[in-house]
């Protein structure tokens, strides 16, 4: 039977024993028999169908007792080949594919895609369109974070925040529906503008949401932030250093929780984000608790941006006034010959792009969302449409984060990364 040598001593920082801190114990080390327990590693499979994986994600864990020694994520169960489909569609026809990726914050994906195409084609959208898109993107940042908040709280046993956050999400669903007619599959943007301008009363509805939302957020704050159980489950769990976070490709709140103040809105600003007054919350420990704090604060900052954007929302047209890019109104297309021709050409052929490629990075709710489009001269369809999926890269870090933690912590780490499988698998 194997034996283990046990040495007695006084641990650092403890003031006990005659000699004070760090005194070796007078007892001599001695051997105790160690029972011959099995050391076989156990494999446990989580998912693909499991509520705690937040989608069809499969995690195969190798366990030493209850400690995770290795995690192998298996993805692809939701692979829909969006990027391949995009090569067969004209620029505007791709928009409906984008919101099906991140169905938790669809408007951000709509906006990011058309921004990239517009940058490639050199189209400058109208001032009103810019501000409307900022409003929509910030609204959906709250939308995405709220889902993360509710489901993550449920993963650690707190049910109430789930109800609170989904009540608020329902309001945003209402706003989506009033704007686009759809609750999730919004498809709100078009190259050169929007599907439609904001409907009457929409801003009042948004203002109503903004008035009530911070109260709910404060309630959730009170329920979770100082909660001993929540702190115990999240602090020190899944921590990563700043350098590692960058090297492993973390972006978004996950990266900022590790202490790197990288926010695409600040560092590579688009749509005049540099003129909005908002803070980028940065954590210091890079653990699940800091990720929670970062997202909570980001929602408050998004409310600030929304108020500022509403205040500066200019009038004027929402679509660029170029008949080769924007569709004419239905009335014009039916009554005016020239408009009808433009309408016909745009629908049947699409918008020709210049030769080149364009990578447009924006700050989505999950992290840096990059839309990379490659076009050939005059191409009305992309040669390649690539989405740089933030969740995909964030999820790839999970083997490193979960190593050495308990299985229950793995669930918390997975939840804290805020993944959406529709975008990971594409």
């Amino acid at each position: 039977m194997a034996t283990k040598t046990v040495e007695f001593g006084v641990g650092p920082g403890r003031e006990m024993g005659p000699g004070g801190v760090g005194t070796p114990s007078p007892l001599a080390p001695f051997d105790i028999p160690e029972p011959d327990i099995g050391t076989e590693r156990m494999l446990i499979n989580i998912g693909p169908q499991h509520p705690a994986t937040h989608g069809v994600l499969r995690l195969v864990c190798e366990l030493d007792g209850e400690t995770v020694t290795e995690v192998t994520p298996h993805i692809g169960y939701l692979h829909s080949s969006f990027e391949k489909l995009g090569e067969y569609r004209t620029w505007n026809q791709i928009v409906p594919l984008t919101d099906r990726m991140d169905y938790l914050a669809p408007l951000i994906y709509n906006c990011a895609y058309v921004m990239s195409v517009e940058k490639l084609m050199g189209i400058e959208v109208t001032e009103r369109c810019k501000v409307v898109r900022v409003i929509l993107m910030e609204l959906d940042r709250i939308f995405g974070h709220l889902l993360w908040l509710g489901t993550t709280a449920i993963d650690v046993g707190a049910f109430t925040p789930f109800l609170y956050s989904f009540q608020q999400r329902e309001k945003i669903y209402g706003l989506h529906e009033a704007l686009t007619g759809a609750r999730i599959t919004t498809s709100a943007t078009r190259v050169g503008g929007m599907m439609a301008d904001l409907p009457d009363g929409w801003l009042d509805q948004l203002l109503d949401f903004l008035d009530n939302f911070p109260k709910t957020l404060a309630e959730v704050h009170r329920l979770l932030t100082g909660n001993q159980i929540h702190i115990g489950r999240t602090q020190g769990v899944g921590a990563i250093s700043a350098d590692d976070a960058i090297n492993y490709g973390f972006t978004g709140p996950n990266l900022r929780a590790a202490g790197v103040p990288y926010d695409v809105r600040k560092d590579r600003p688009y749509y005049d984000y540099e003129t909005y007054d908002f803070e980028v919350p940065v954590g210091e420990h890079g653990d699940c608790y800091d990720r929670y704090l970062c997202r909570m604060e980001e929602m408050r900052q998004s409310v600030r941006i929304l108020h500022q954007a509403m205040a500066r929302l200019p009038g004027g047209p929402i679509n660029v006034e170029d008949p080769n890019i924007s569709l004419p109104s239905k009335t014009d297309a039916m009554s005016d010959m020239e408009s009808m021709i433009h309408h016909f050409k745009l629908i049947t052929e699409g918008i020709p792009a210049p030769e080149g490629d364009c990578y447009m990075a924006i700050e989505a709710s999950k992290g840096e969302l990059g839309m990379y489009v490659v076009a050939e001269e005059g191409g009305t369809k992309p040669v390649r449409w690539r989405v740089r999926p933030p969740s995909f890269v964030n999820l790839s870090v999970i083997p490193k984060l979960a190593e050495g933690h308990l299985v229950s912590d793995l669930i918390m780490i997975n939840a804290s990364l805020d993944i959406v499988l529709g975008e990971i698998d594409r």
Partner: protein
Amino acid sequence: MSDSKSPLDAVEEGPASSDGGDSGAQASTGSPDDHPTVAALLEAFPDEVQRYRLNAGDQYVVWIRPDRSHEILAWLKNDPEHLYDMMSDVTGVDYGGGRPVEVVYQMYSTTHGLALRIRCPLPLDALEIDSVCDLWNSANWLEREVFDLFGVTFRDHPDLRRILMPDDYAEGYPLRKDFPLRGRFSRAEQTRRALNQDVERFYLAEDLGHGVPQEVESAPSPAALESGAPGAEREGEQG
């Protein structure tokens, strides 16, 4: 554009691919002085840089030869003048028509606030390039995805397996232009293969294919012995 074809014809044909050879855009555009890294790259690796281009208004793209790509990328990451510490994206582009498949690196330097795109054309008969996993861990899954969807082999990648498509996917590389939209096999064949799959197979310990052999200190379990370690045969199918 298709003149007298129905929309369905276009779907069957796939995206219009240019005819062989290079497009007319061989010449470099933009001025390398606008982007410090482009100028430095031209100076440090004059033979490796094929051309550079200014795209979409303010984005610099540099085409490099694949042979010393790892060296160049390591230099971009570690040189104090550049410090591209963030590998945002690794992806591939296939133009079709026999043109090379290009591997595209999107890099960003958090120190200098600069973004750069490196494109590395690989001829179709030598789709191999050095992995940059040792420099940026974020490249791990991204390179796996390029391997999975384009069939580009990354040398010295720690764990080069398919990632989005199933491990035993036999129809090829979906994002290549010669891959039909509906797959290579008929729908009947696809269904047959799905039904014939041994679903248990993906739940066996030996089948995980971590890249690292699993350490089992005691005797292997009876289930593993019975199945006769199917992991070994699967290795060959991957390439």
